C-alpha cells in the first residue's frame, strides 16, 4: 500500500518537473506534430517550426524549432531560412538557440508538446482569432506548411486537426480552457 502511494507521488512530481501543468491551473494548448516516414535513399530529418500567428499574420510566439543544433560552427543555422514562412514572419528576428523553444531535429513519428499560457514559449494571448502554423523543410526533400485556425480562449476543451500532404502528417491542436 505504502509503495503504491509513494510511486504515485513520484510520478506526479516527475510530471510537474517535465513542465506538464494540470489543466485546472492555467489555460493552455497541446500540439501534435506528425513527421511522416519517408522511403527515400537519402533521408534527413526535417527542420520544423511551430508558431502562432494572429489574424493579421503578426506572430504571437514561436513554440518550437527543431534544427541541427549540434553542427560544427553553427552550420545548422544556415538552413533555417528554408522554413521560409517562419523565417520571414519571425525567425530572422530571433537569435537561436532559445532555451525551451529550439531543439534538435526529430525522427519520423508523432511528437506531442504541451504549453501553458504564460509559461515558457506560450505567452498570455489576448482574446481573438489565431492560427497554429507548422512548417517543415527537409534536405533533398520538400517543404510544407500546415495551418490550423482557432479562437482563443476556449470555453470548453476543443480538438482541432489538419493533415499535411507531403512533409507533414497529422497536425493536432487541443485547446484547454
Amino acid at each position, binding site marked *: 500500500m505504502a509503495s503504491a502511494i509513494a510511486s504515485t507521488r513520484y510520478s506526479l512530481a516527475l510530471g510537474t518537473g517535465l513542465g506538464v501543468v494540470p489543466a485546472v491551473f492555467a489555460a493552455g494548448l497541446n500540439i501534435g506534430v506528425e513527421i511522416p516516414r519517408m522511403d527515400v535513399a537519402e533521408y534527413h530529418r526535417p527542420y520544423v517550426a511551430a508558431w502562432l500567428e494572429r489574424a493579421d499574420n503578426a506572430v504571437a510566439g514561436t513554440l518550437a524549432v527543431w534544427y541541427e543544433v549540434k553542427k560544427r560552427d*553553427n552550420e545548422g*543555422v*544556415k*538552413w*533555417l*531560412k528554408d522554413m*521560409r514562412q517562419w*523565417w*520571414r514572419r519571425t*525567425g*530572422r*528576428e530571433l537569435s537561436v538557440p532559445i532555451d525551451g523553444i529550439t531543439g534538435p531535429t526529430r525522427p519520423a513519428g508523432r511528437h506531442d508538446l504541451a504549453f501553458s499560457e504564460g509559461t515558457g514559449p506560450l505567452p498570455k494571448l489576448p482574446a481573438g482569432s489565431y492560427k497554429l502554423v507548422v512548417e517543415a523543410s527537409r534536405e533533398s526533400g520538400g517543404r510544407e506548411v500546415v495551418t490550423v485556425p482557432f479562437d482563443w480562449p476556449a470555453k470548453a476543451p476543443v480538438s482541432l486537426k489538419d493533415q499535411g500532404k507531403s512533409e507533414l502528417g497529422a497536425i493536432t491542436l487541443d485547446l484547454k480552457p
Partner: protein
Amino acid sequence: MRIAYRLTFCAAALCGLLSHAQAHNVWLKPSSTVLSKAEWITVDAAVSNDLFFFNHFPLNIEKLAVTAPDGGTVQPENVSRGKLRTVFDLNLTQPGTYRLAVANASLNASYKDRATGQTKRWRGTLDKLAAEVPADAVDLAVTESVSRIETFVTVGKPSALQPINHGLELVPVTSPADLVQGEKATFVLHVDGKPAPGIEVEVIADGTRYRNQIDPVKATTDAQGRFSVTWPAAGLYWIEASAKDGKTSAAPAKERRLSYVATVEVLP
C-alpha cells in the same frame, strides 16, 4: 543633329553600359539573396541577350561597389573575368541588407570631322572631352549616360538601404528579402533622390531561353513614383527602367539618359 540621336551605341556592350534599353541585358546574378547566417556568396556578372544566360560578354566590374549594412564596403574576391561572364565571391559577415551595384556615368558624343565629313563617335568623361574631341567638330551632340546595375542580398533580418540620390534609383517599399510568389511587392523609383512619376518599368522572369515570348510585366510609376508587381512564379526577375531629362552634370551635354536594372529573387 537628328542623325546623332538615331545612332545606336553598340560599343556600350563592351564597357557594360546599358545605353539603350533594347540593346543587351546587363545583370548581376547572386547565388543567394536570402541567408540565415553570415556566409560567402558568389555572383555572376554578364552582358547578354538572355535572362539569365551568358551568351555575349562579361560585365566590367571596375565600378562595382558592395555596400554593407553598416555603410562599409566589401571587396570582391576570387574575381575571374572569362569570355562570357565575370565571377566574384563576397564574404558577407554582417546581418542586414547588402547593396551590390555597378554604377557608370559617361558622356557620349557624336560629331562630323570637319576635314573628312566623317561621322565620329566618342565616349568618355568630361575631363577628356576637350582633349579628345576636336574643337572644330561639326554637329557636335553630347549626351550624358548614367546607369546602375544592382542586386540585393540579406543576411538574417533586413536593414534599411542608404539612398544613392543620384540618377535613377529603385527604393524598395517591400524588402527584396520579402518577395514571394503570388504576393504583391511595391517599389518606388527616384531620380536624383526625388520620387519620379511616369517612368516605364519592365519586369522579366528568368528563363527567356526556354519560352517563346519574353512576356514582360509592364508598369508605370504613379504620382508618388510607385509601381507594384504581383509575382506570377518563384524565380529570378530582372527589373528595368529608363528615363531621359535635361539635368546633365556637364554643360556640353544637353540630354541625360538614365537607366536602372536590378535582379531580384522571388521565393515560393
